[in-house]
């Protein structure tokens, strides 16, 4: 993958974060030796528990984002790690070190500044789908991950984790969200529902829109520096 864009940006700002992408909605950010884990859910089958984890963010209670076994494994290896999540998640893992977070709350942990957004999960169906809690997270005012929502970060961000397919959105909505956030760089997430063939098409459609608005859209298969 061509990471030139991301590296140049990094050099300019002088801050280095390494982003490692796992399947579906999961990724880690490493900065100055500290690691933040985001949405290590059941569909991130390639997830490897890192060392030096200071915090885990779980955006909501659905199994593709929230996997108690993975959280336990992270805490076993990193007893100092704190799990930030909405109450609907923390109440299900009483035995683990958790902290309830709400929209607009800001947390400082291990050199990361986490700002939470949103509040509710996007609607799958107006009559059948209960209202679930969901928080988005802005890391260091640089990267935004909305969880299962299209809540806007309400500030400029350089990097966007873009949910490209979900029961609650169509492509015109993920495209409009991408254009509204207008990051410099966007990478696809929430895509375990797609076949290999689906990856190709969904990436093509989002890339077309991104290019038109001067956004770099690239699938991350391992790690990049931002």
């Amino acid at each position: 993958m061509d990471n030139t864009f991301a590296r140049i940006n990094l050099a300019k700002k002088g801050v280095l974060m390494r982003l490692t992408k796992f399947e579906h909605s999961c990724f880690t950010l490493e900065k100055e030796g500290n690691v933040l884990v985001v949405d290590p859910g059941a569909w991130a089958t390639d997830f490897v528990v890192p060392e030096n984890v200071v915090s885990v963010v779980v955006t909501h209670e659905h199994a593709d984002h929230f996997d108690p076994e993975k959280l336990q494994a992270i805490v076993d290896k990193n007893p100092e790690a704190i799990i930030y999540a909405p109450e609907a998640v923390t109440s299900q893992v009483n035995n683990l070190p958790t902290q309830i977070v709400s929209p607009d709350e800001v947390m400082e942990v291990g050199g990361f500044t986490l700002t939470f957004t949103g509040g509710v999960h996007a609607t799958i169906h107006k009559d059948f789908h209960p209202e679930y809690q969901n928080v988005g997270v802005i890391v260091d005012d640089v990267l935004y991950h909305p969880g299962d929502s299209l809540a806007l970060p309400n500030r400029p961000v350089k990097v966007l984790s873009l949910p490209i397919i979900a029961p609650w959105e169509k492509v015109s909505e993920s495209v409009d969200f991408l254009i509204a956030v207008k990051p410099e760089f966007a990478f696809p997430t929430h895509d375990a529902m797609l076949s290999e063939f689906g990856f190709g098409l969904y990436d093509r459609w989002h890339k077309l829109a991104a290019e038109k608005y001067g956004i770099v859209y690239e699938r991350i298969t391992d790690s990049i520096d931002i």
Partner: protein
Amino acid sequence: MKLTKYEHACFVVEKDNQSIVVDPGSDSNNLKIPTNVTGILITHEHSDHFFPERIAQIRLVNPSAVVYGPSSIVSLIENAKILENNQNFQVGNFEIHSFVGTHDLIHPESPMIPNVSYLIDTVIYYGGDSLWYPEDIHPKIVAIPISANWMRFSDAIEMLRVLRPQYAFPTHDRLLSDIGKTVADTHMTNFTKDYGVSYERRGPSEPIEING
């Protein structure tokens, strides 16, 4: 009458030893071409629904098969009949009704193209790539698209809630992984069963038998 579902958007309906093939697109590689095809119904010009090479393969063994579809495919293939909105026509022993509309919106910046929805023998309804549906029909079976860039699950659920067929089977799902199909099928089953819809995924080895 027997309905056999193939990959993505394609299915075959057979009655009285005559078959019609619907949307034999580029992604329907497992299509077993029948030798008694009288007609081929095309909803729109996108290659996952309309693939001239596949039509040529069908015509190789069924030289008299007529292709029906929107005006946009006529220049792309020989011996095709353009359908009008609300047209009733016979294809062999089948009675077909066409509804001509537009392909659903992908994004406001994408061009709009025509799309034909079909009612076959007043029993089977299939709308192609469109969320529109006639509200005054009572089909027994609906071919329901479950994953496309122009829709969400809730759109498919709404269509089934209004049409209330006895049976619905998923179509337009080539973009989904096994996980994606499971999620889609679970939502579709759970959210439509209270409306009397029996939603079931069927492969080519499990054709649906339709009586009356």
